[in-house]
């Protein structure tokens, strides 16, 4: 464990309060989900320490530790601009697609530092779904098969496509129009198609960056249901602007504010008895 507590960087609290807080919680309390024992079958997937990300001269994440367990849904919440998307994108090194982006600190995926991994291999293990549905201008089938094709799979494509579409709970709706354009689908279907596309290469981790922000409540519910089913087979990290969604769909929730990790707890605990006043202020809607 890092010796640096995320609490160290907290500002705006008087020192007595700070001290008592620090005494009350061990440093790893925020970085390691404390109730991991309550979720059997989990292992540590990501072990992240002193993560700092800056774009040019502007530092967006100011250095914090967080561990993410396998086979659960971890939600990252926080107001706009708090760095939650940047955090997510650093997990599969998508930050590198931005010019002048710099990442410091260690991100270990199954005990291997991702900075030293081949980025193509990393992204095949850590899939990603984006804020806006972004299917390719191809058929539904080709969208799902894209990842398989670039990975050199040639045979049994249709089985793999069907399996992915089933996992994304889209198969029944599209099985008769696999070869028509992905753009003919509704927004929610497109987003599930993007999930199917990401699942096709069988990632160990699925990162979702506000996947429902462009969708209606019914479709959102479908996707949340989907996450619930998917966590049996992969680790899910979801960034969301929507606190209700985090409360409904996740097992653990991390609250980020201005590039710092404020609180990281089992979701029911974070939403019912948050230990930081700022978390409470945020979840009760006093800012953000």
């Amino acid at each position: 464990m890092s010796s640096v507590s995320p609490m160290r960087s907290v500002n705006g609290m008087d020192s007595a309060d700070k001290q008592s807080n620090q005494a009350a919680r061990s440093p790893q309390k925020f970085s390691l989900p404390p109730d991991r024992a309550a979720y059997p079958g989990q292992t540590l997937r990501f072990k992240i320490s002193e993560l700092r990300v800056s774009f040019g001269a502007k530092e967006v994440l100011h250095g914090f530790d967080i561990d993410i367990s396998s086979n659960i849904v971890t939600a990252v919440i926080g107001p706009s601009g708090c760095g939650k998307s940047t955090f997510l994108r650093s997990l599969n090194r998508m930050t590198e697609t931005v010019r002048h982006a710099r990442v410091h600190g260690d991100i270990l995926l199954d005990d291997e530092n991702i900075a030293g991994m081949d980025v193509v291999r990393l992204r095949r293990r850590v899939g990603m779904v984006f804020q806006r549905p972004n299917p390719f201008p191809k058929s539904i089938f080709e969208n799902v098969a894209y990842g398989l094709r670039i990975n050199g799979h040639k045979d049994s494509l249709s089985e793999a496509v069907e399996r992915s579409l089933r996992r994304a709970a889209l198969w029944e709706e599209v099985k008769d129009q696999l070869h028509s354009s992905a753009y003919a689908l509704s927004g929610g279907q497109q987003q599930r198609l993007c999930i199917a596309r990401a699942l096709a290469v069988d990632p160990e981790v699925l990162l979702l960056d506000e996947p429902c922000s462009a969708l209606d409540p019914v479709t959102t519910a479908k996707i949340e249901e989907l996450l619930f089913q998917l966590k049996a087979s992969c680790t899910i990290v979801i960034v969301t602007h929507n606190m209700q969604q985090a409360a409904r769909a996740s097992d653990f929730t991390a609250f980020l504010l201005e590039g710092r990790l404020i609180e990281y707890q089992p979701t029911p605990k974070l939403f019912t008895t948050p230990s930081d006043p700022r978390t409470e202020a945020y979840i009760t809607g006093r800012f953000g």
Partner: protein
Amino acid sequence: MHASANMTERAALSKAPRAFLHRLRSGDEIAHIITLMFAALVVGITALLVYQLWIQSVLSRQKFGWIFFVTHVWDPLAGQFGALPFLYGTLVTSAIALILAVPLGLGTAIFLSEFSTPRASDIFAFLVDLLAAVPSVIFGLLGIFVMVPWLRTTVEPALQSTLGFLPLFQGPMYGVGFLAAGLILAVMVVPFIVSVSREVLIAVPREQREAALALGATRWEAIWKAVVPFAKTGIIGSVFLALARALGETMAVTMVIGNDPRISASLFAPGYSIAAVIANEFTEATGNLYLSALVELGLVLFMLTFVLNGLARLLVLTTRQRGAGHQ
């Protein structure tokens, strides 16, 4: 019933002019009328052009009919006129130009939009746009004094010794000819392809790139299998813009093509193009039939451009549908 219908009609009538006047004051109707007139003028000019070409070429059309397109004799003294050598020259030189310019232009555009820094890309794009603005007579001069000697002494012998088994690269090497014209056209149309394709590639949404990268695509796979397909329609558009320029280019072509109405399989041989023959022979066309034949060539060139543009539209349409429908 009738009475009431009349009443409302009359009410509407008396109201309409007032509404019109009111809107006239706010400028809507004026803007509408003026812009409509401009739009009609553009269409009218095109129609007038076709009409004039049609009327002026009546002698030649009546004398030769469809034979005009398939005879290769161009003998003003004997009053024999056939369009085939010119049609051939125009198509061959344009084809050479596109075969050379499309990979070069697309490659440059991909480099500028994907690999170079935005600043360098903008500077380079500016220079490329300058290249597009160079008058074609300058290209022609460069062609005569630099390219043609180089072709004759270096390129054509090299091609003949390596690919000489193809009829394309056989026969005497003059320097001037189809290859020279195609090459100079390629240089002239590359800026169009680079400029338009670069803009289209830059406009591809970030999400498309990221979607491919997040699936474990390499940078090149993301470009070639996600970004370029997304921009396909625009890229095809840029190619046809280039083709239109190549088909109609007159000055530079006539300076290096050799101006000899012959059809040869060899790219080294001199030829002639439609635009070049019109420009060269128009002033010395003696006799109405000669003149009329030249005008008909103009009509042919116009129709060729028209047909190719139509094909381009069709291609864009079908690739769009195929992109949507094929597996």
